[in-house]
């Protein structure tokens, strides 16, 4: 908890004054006054304060008219309090000009401050002062942009609702026609798309089956070729066999004939 000692300080000043008077020390106050006056008065501070005063004026102005600006203008409220759009436009314009002017003033001050000053501390100080003023201006601009955003939103909403009927009707008709055309096109395209999809599906199946059959046919082909070979060989073998068979028969026949002739001969020899 801080304790205010200012009064005590003032009392100390009085004490010291009286003590000094008693001792006989006086102070040449006039000399000091002159000394004070000869100190160069910088123009920076009053200029900066002027900018702030202007920004405050703008802020007060905006706040003063804010309610009317933002109000929806219902049919119930009286015409007196309702602000016309042209009035609002005027406010917007004025505010923008004002803000721009203030911003320019700050920039100018900054340039001046850069050039004139040699001490780095004073430079830093003035830079910081201008930053503060800029932040203040930003805050006030925010006030403005907020209420303007509300206004724009309202305007846009209004436009959506109260556009002239005739033009809408014509456009609507045109729209309708185009829409139905598009719709039918879209339907056809959809159908075709469906069919194409089916075809491709069937083709897929077909190709699949064909591929399956290919392998089977290949194997059959192999078998057939093999079988042909086998049959050919078999024919050869049969021919051989027939030949052998035929030869064999001839021998048997000859043997039998010889046997019978030998029998006949023996029979003839015997008798």
């Amino acid at each position, binding site marked *: 908890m801080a304790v205010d000692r200012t009064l005590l*300080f003032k009392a100390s000043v009085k004490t010291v004054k009286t003590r*000094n008077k008693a001792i006989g020390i006086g*102070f040449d106050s006039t000399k000091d006054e002159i000394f*004070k006056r000869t100190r160069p008065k910088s123009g*920076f501070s009053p200029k900066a304060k002027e900018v702030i005063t202007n920004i405050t004026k703008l802020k007060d102005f905006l706040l003063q008219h804010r309610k009317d600006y933002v109000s929806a203008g219902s049919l119930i409220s009286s015409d007196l309090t309702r602000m016309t759009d042209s009035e609002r436009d005027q406010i917007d314009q004025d505010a923008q000009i004002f803000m721009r002017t203030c911003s320019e003033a700050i920039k100018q001050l900054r340039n001046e401050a850069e050039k004139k000053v040699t001490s780095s501390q004073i430079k830093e*100080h003035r830079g*910081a002062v201008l930053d*503060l003023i800029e*932040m*203040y201006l930003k805050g006030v601009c925010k006030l403005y942009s907020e209420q303007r955003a509300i206004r724009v939103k309202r305007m846009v909403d209004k436009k959506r609702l109260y556009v002239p009927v005739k033009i809408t009707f014509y456009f609507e008709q045109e729209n309708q026609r185009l829409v139905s055309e598009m719709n039918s096109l879209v339907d056809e395209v959809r159908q075709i798309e469906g069919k194409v999809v089916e075809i491709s599906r069937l083709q897929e199946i077909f190709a699949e089956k064909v591929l399956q059959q290919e392998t089977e046919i290949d194997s059959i082909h192999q078998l057939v070729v093999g079988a042909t070979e086998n049959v050919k060989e078999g024919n050869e073998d049969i021919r051989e066999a027939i030949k052998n068979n035929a030869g064999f028969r001839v021998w048997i026949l000859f043997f039998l004939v010889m046997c019978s002739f030998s029998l006949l001969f023996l029979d003839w020899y015997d008798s």
Partner: protein
Amino acid sequence: APSLPTTSKMAASVREKQTVALKRMLNFNAPPLKNTAAEPVWKVLIYDRFGQDIISPLLSVKELRDMGITLHLLLHSDRDPIPDVPAIYFVMPTEENIDRICQDLRNQLYESYYLNFISAISRSKLEDIASAALAANAVSQVTKVFDQYLNFITLEDDMFILCHQNKELISYHAINRPDIQDTDMDAIMDTIVDSLFCFFVTLGAVPIIRCPRGNAAEMVAVKLDKKLRENLRDARNSLFTGDSMAAGQFSFQRPLFVLADRNVDMATPLHHTWTYQALIHDVLDFHLNRVMMEEGAGAEPSPAGARPKKKSRKTYDLTAADKFWQKHKGSPFPEVAESVQEELDTYRAQEDEVKRLKSIMGLEGEDEGAISMLSDNTAKLTSAVSSLPELLEKKRLIDLHTNVATAVLDHIKSRKLDVYFEYEEKLMSKSTLDKSLLDIISDPDAGTPEDKMRLFLIYYITTQQAPTESDLEQYKKALLDAGCDLSPLTYIKQWKAFTKMASTPANYGNSGVKPMGLFSRVMNTGSQFVMEGVKNLVLKQHNLPVTRILDNLMEMKSHPETDDYRYFDPKMLRGSESSIPRNKNPFQEAIVFVVGGGNYIEYQNLVDYTKSKQGKKVVYGCSELFNSAQFIKQVRAADCSDMMLL
């Protein structure tokens, strides 16, 4: 008018109160307006090092700028005249400072002067300023003179220290050195009591004081009681009536103020620790909530032939606004490592979301007209844009903690601090030890010589039976081989001998350390913080001596350690003490102050204790904060044949 009083805790913490007082001072000693779109008023702030230390943990440079302070300068520096700006001074009322202020007045540096003294200025010094102002014809320019009673530094909502500059004047060494004179001691006690008085003025409460007998803490208690009593009796100038009471105090009960002397527990300042804030204080350069690190001081060597990386110093401020810090400053380190990883993952997810929104906006923006600008898309974009600064801030904090935690982890790994911590916990709780002390001391890989000395000192302090001469020689030899400096041991020996004589040795309670084992190691390998080889230790709650003392006094428990503590109630009309406490009910609020210095381990222990008690509020304070390295330096210097315990 104050709102309805509640029986629960005080409305605002001492940090908030001090911040409010500072903000008021910086607004020309008037309460700050609520209206944010107010006209800016600019001013310069002049402080001395004490003022700087008080302000810097509480207000950032940006906050100062927002309050209209264009320049903040040290009193004893070259200052150019800026004749069109008011100046706010925040300094201690010392001879040099007053001289400099008078010089400023004579040189007409500023337009007007608001003089704020950190602690009360004497009448004679006020007259010095008055005469200088008269001589310079500047009396009308001295607009306000205030005594701020802010002569203490608040680091946390529940922690404060007395000073950072010139803390060697009231350090442990200064109080306990053998060659101290009565006048020196008096001066030190006055400094401490002045700060504590300011603390209670800012808090707006008159406490009930308890202190042990026969040491520096008792001296502080006696003087503080006297000062509070005098102020209360002075009806005109009392600082504890009216506004201060109404503004601050909503509880029906007065707080308990426990004074403890550092000598009651010498092991905790030497202890290795495992919680985040305490670790940072132990291994890194950390003071006034600011960490200073060398960037690029990583463990990896630079590739052969490359230029060595230039090490730049980086400072990080760990503030109240840093949510991660507030949540995890008392957490065990592995938990911190995990949490940083989690935060990083969450941040990346949010970043991706913002990127996605951006790309969506890019595609759709071309087709839609002006009308759709006011639709949902704008709202999404606005929220994305407005959350960007938040996201960037989050990224900054994640980077900060990644860097800090990595630096801490490097220390832990290279010095094997987890081993030391575990062993010391076992020593302090008299559990069975799985390794011999000699092994750890002789191990060349584990810890710096200072770590080993700390370990040995803790062993020496906590052991029930003093080691035999031969054992002691063995230890000494091992320590010398490891490169340790044995001079602190002399002091500790004498301290121990004296403490044994005076009272029962401090009991560190049943603590325990449970290693978490493989499970946690597996979990951590996915994260940036590879804690391989580092044990994941879980702390079991146990009370350090200071916490135990507080518990006894706060809960009105009977215990041989605290039964003969003195009792002071500055509000009582007759007699300054009785050993019989009048108040039979347990206290809801307490302030613990350690004369001779303290550290974050003690603080964390108190915080953990308070968490376990519903509805209680405990504030920790100490005359200075030191980490183990600093404490050992003081102990080394305090080699004494005659202990400074009265």
